[in-house]
């Protein structure tokens, strides 16, 4: 499953806007390149905040979100019953 897909290093200027607004704290500025990078991909919640604030359109987000917990995924049952 994809969430935030890509930060295009050719377009990114390293302004840090996406890092600042990410509610899940998954983005960082790479200490070597000085550009934004996806540090904790699995925690992305597909909220588009990074894409919206990017001044150079360097961020792409896929609309398909990761598998989320929902009531029909499991049922609480006795260990004995599986």
């Amino acid at each position, binding site marked *: 499953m994809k969430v935030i897909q890509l930060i295009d290093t050719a377009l990114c200027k390293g302004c*840090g*806007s996406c890092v*600042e*607004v*990410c*509610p*899940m*704290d998954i983005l960082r500025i790479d200490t070597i390149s000085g550009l934004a990078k996806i*540090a*904790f991909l*699995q*925690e992305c*919640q*597909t*909220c*588009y*905040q990074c*894409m*919206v*604030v990017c*001044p150079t*359109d360097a961020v792409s*987000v*896929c*609309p*398909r*979100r*990761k598998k*989320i*917990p*929902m*009531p*029909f*995924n*499991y*049922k*609480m*049952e*006795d260990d004995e019953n599986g």
Partner: protein
Amino acid sequence: MKLESSGSIFTKRGRIAKDNTIDTDLLVIGSGLGGLWSAWAALDSGLNRVAIVDKCSIGESSQSKMSAGATVYCTKRDPFDLWFKELVEQQKYLSRQDMVEDMLKTSGQLLEKQKEWGLWYEKMPWGSPTLHVGGTKNLKMHVLPRYKGIGGGGAIVNVIKDQVLAKGGEFYSKVMITGLLHSQGKVCGAVGVDRMTGETLTFKSRGVVIATADCSFGNTGCIGHSTGDGYKLAYDMGARLTNMEFWGSNTGSPQYSFESISDTAANFGCRFYNNKGQYFTHKYTSAGDKAEPFKIAQAMADEAENGGGPPYYFDMRSLAWRLGYQLVLKRKMTGFVTQMFEELKRQGIDPFERPMEWVPLMRTIRGGIRTDMNCMTDIPGLFAAGTAQALDPNGLNGISTVRAMWSGQQAGRQAARYINGSYDIKATGVDNLSEARSLAVKPLKNSGAIKPVEVIGLIQMIVFPYNISLKKDSKSLLMAIRAIRNLKSVMEIELAADSPHELSKAHEAMNMTLTAELYLTASLLREESRGDHYREDYQKTDNKNWLKWINLKNGGNGNIATEIEPVPLNKYKLDYRGG
């Protein structure tokens, strides 16, 4: 189409002493509408220094910003009595009616104040800025806010954020508050960690407002960062929490971030189908597809037991809805829902051409920190605002927003009043500074084997099953309580973090674990069904015995102390009349 960006993203940090201490009059934790309105009201009431802290960015990452910005304002032209009655009935008579009354009565003034500051609302093609609130007959909400070219929740957040800046509020973004400080039973600040560097910061203040939103247990829908942070801060201090058994449910797409839209769409003729292509909601609720969101979610659970799903489908092909989208939403609405429509179309998926798979989704805990009318908790100097404060059962679009504005300005004004009348707490010293600083970084120093992300996954496996979330029963709840307590005891020894990012996640995991235990405990205690809270083994609403609130607080030694408090209907404007 790209959504408008919000105003200034970056905020300059306020003053920090060399020892990483910040001295302030009032500390506000959280920067959505509740936090920002608190800060503004406190500054407007004469406080000199107000520090606003957020674990993400100031305003920009808040739940308020993520919302579409729809808000119920009761203006002079609106029928207050009718709206008040409908709201209390929707909240199943567990409303804090004094708060609801004051909120509605002053909401028109809040609207006027924001208009003075430059906020305005787009009008619909029929000339009104309002729409009916889904699942209600009378309530109306203003739906399309605008401010400096910004739309959606960003507009209502930025209008107040600008006012806080203008009054000299000091911002501290990327700081996760991990514990409150106290002195002789009064709150006097907090300790937090910088999420980027891992450094510990100490805020010394004479009052604290908790405005950290509620808890989604890390679920998505763009509220995965609502992790019960304020609940634990208040609980650890000994404050009571209430209504924790109510967990707001809604419906949405399992694959895409379409949530909290079907109640509005159903008013435009959109329909729910079961796995046989049949309408089904009318079998479980008389309002059918136009029922309150939690009833649709519960209907899906009921239909599952009759073999009708999952999967379920939501059909957005209605002509009225498509026209509404083209004429209003596409042109004027902002937020992730419209962004989602456009991204889907780019990928060749058109939600207006074929029904989409749809499921019940659990949103956020409705309960929270119990306060009085002044938004003060049981602990002197500690206030709560926004959705961190206990809300009434049953979420409706547009209510949380106005409640956050109301409680925010109330908490800020009363905190200022409290602080101006209190003694200088700095003279008495802090009782728990070294302990709080040590606890803040404890997971970093732990060599245990469990990572926060694993804990969060386990919490979700315990609370999300439908016999725990949508249709509870005592046997399942008891099993879940046992599981969450086991997890808690293992976590105390084994939870470890190896980076500042993981450190804040570890605190979120601890906060969610406590929230889960409170939710399960209150759910087991309420032996009836009411609103969002449905008990398979007590299916009826029991107004004779359960027009009561369940309050929970720290009982010491890892135990939760419980209290059943009758709703004082005899003192309230609207008494329950039976039925």
